[in-house]
């Protein structure tokens, strides 16, 4: 059914060992419909792994299964060898997985700063007594949180820092995406899940996004699992790619391997499509993506 996962011969810049996240036989039924079926996936520290697939292939469902929004019907999700099954979303965040959403879910009527501060919720320890009486520890913690929020925003350049007191609805689409990532970084995650980080962006913004996804990995030592629709982007930034179709993993491997995989081409373009056409398309787009 699925292509054997390919061992990576040459690992990215830094050698990685061990497994950060492991999905084994994850299955999710909605009623009689199998949204995700028997998916295995292994993500190593400091990897950028993409999940691709046609619409309705179950990509976002996989994200929801990892983050505890859905519970798998069967199978197991493990982070650092410990199962995440049965945890609520907020407990998953505490374990070190945060995410962004396909159709940006920011707190629209809160400021940029407040959004990022909510992201740090799990990092703040203030109890009721502390916050009512403003004990020195709480005052200090709050100041630190703001400082850190500014740092997180400055990761994306000075623009967001300058606009930190603005309500997020007033931001541009690309800026909202960045704030959402900054919010996700607030909880100091080990693994960041990005659900279509370039959806709805123009070419310039997409390139920008590709750059900071790489920087997230390189500068912040994050492991990144992303869902992406734009093949060019996926090919450009992923260490490995997993392809879903109708809830099943039909392929996994290096970008070049996946690109030439017949099942993938079939899933994307239909049976009659010629392999050459898709390859041409992918490689030109690829070049655009790699700066």
């Amino acid at each position, binding site marked *: 059914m699925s292509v054997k996962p390919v061992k990576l011969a040459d690992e990215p810049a830094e050698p990685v060992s061990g497994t950060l996240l492991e999905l084994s036989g994850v299955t999710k039924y909605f009623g009689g419909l199998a949204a995700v079926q028997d998916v295995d996936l292994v993500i190593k520290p400091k990897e950028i792994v993409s999940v691709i697939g046609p619409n309705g292939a179950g990509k976002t469902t996989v994200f929801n299964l990892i983050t505890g929004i859905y519970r798998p019907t069967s199978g197991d999700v493990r982070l650092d060898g410990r199962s995440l099954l049965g945890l609520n979303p907020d407990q998953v965040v505490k374990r070190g997985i945060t*995410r962004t959403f396909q159709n940006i*879910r920011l*707190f629209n009527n809160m400021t940029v700063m407040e959004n990022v501060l909510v992201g740090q*919720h799990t990092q*703040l320890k*203030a109890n009721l007594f502390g916050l009512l009486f403003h004990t020195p520890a709480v005052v200090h913690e709050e100041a630190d949180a703001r400082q850190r929020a500014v740092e997180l925003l400055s990761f994306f350049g000075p623009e967001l820092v300058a606009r930190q007191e603005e309500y997020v609805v007033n931001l541009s689409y690309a800026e909202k995406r960045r704030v959402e990532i900054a*919010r996700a970084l607030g909880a100091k995650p080990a693994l960041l899940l990005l659900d279509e980080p370039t959806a709805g962006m123009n070419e310039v913004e997409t390139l920008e996004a590709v750059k900071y996804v790489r920087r997230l990995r390189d500068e912040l030592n994050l492991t990144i699992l992303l869902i992406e629709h734009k093949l060019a982007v996926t090919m450009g930034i992923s260490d490995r790619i997993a392809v879903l179709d109708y809830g099943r993993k039909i392929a996994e491997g290096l970008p070049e391997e996946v690109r030439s995989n017949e099942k993938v081409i079939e899933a994307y373009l239909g049976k009659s499509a010629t392999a050459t056409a898709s390859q041409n398309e992918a490689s030109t787009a690829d070049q655009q993506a790699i700066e």
Partner: protein
Amino acid sequence: MILALGLNIVVGFAGLLDLGYVAFFAIGCYVWGMIGSTQLTNVLNVAPIDPHILSWLFWPMLLGAALVAAFFGVILGAPTLRLRGDYLAIVTLGFGEIVPIVLLELDKYTNGTNGIVGVQSPAFFGIDWSIITPAPYYYLILALIALSIFANIRLRDSRLGRAWIAIREDEVAAASSGVNLVNTKLFAFGAGAFFSGVAGAYYAAKLGGASPDNFSFNDSVIYLAMVVIGGIGSIPGVIVGALVVYSINELILAQLDTLASDPTNFMFFVRSAIVHVIPGFTFGNIRNLLFGIVLVVIMIFRPEGLIPSARRRRELRASTEEAPEMGSLDVMPGTPGFETEVRVE
């Protein structure tokens, strides 16, 4: 006003529509009512506590009543907070109806319809707290209001306050940012009920008694109206809203007939003009109608409340310009007008 501030936490910050808020007020009221009179000692068949000591007990029991109310807030919240929006409103509405009925029917403990009488006033060094002198009560309530405002502001600007607002904005995103939905919502319910318990204990002490018919659905709606008229989620707004709603309802409208009986007053002519058309007319008959009209007019001209929070103002303006998707709770600015109309019928 304390009630309005407490309700503001639940409705304004956390976005949980609570239509039975008065239940917690009743609970707070009965806690001090039972303990502060001979009621509890009678029921338990133990020797009554010396009234002098009992009076001093008011202070710890102010906190005690609040904690009991908060406890019931959590009890109510635990099973119901999975519900959202309208469903939650209905359950809380039911709770608001049940509590006074329970207090009414448990007549072995609460004296049923007669209520509790002879509740002790608080004691404080050298101050006369007899019912005839309102001054000490006035300063006491001022102090309690000040404390409530202070606590409200601190809560709002804390990580907890942010989590409440985040939940109101988007539950899934809040959970995915590490906010524990259940605990945080329970806390909002508990905190809201806490303030209402404080107010209840004060009320029992001030009236010197507690009676089950002081707590009707109407009262819940009035408190909600205070929050909405003032500006949902805005602390200064809620303070002003409480003053405005209270003074319209209890001072201006209640005084209309008195004013109209004075021949030198303008209202005298208004009334005599109407009496020509409708015999037997008094302002008292249409008081609720007038109250409703005033509230509706306020909501038409200031849909975001008298002193809206910056958040709310922005949100409402955006909704007319861009009309973003709205959840069931976001429609709330529409309901106050509706609420008041319901009240008028």
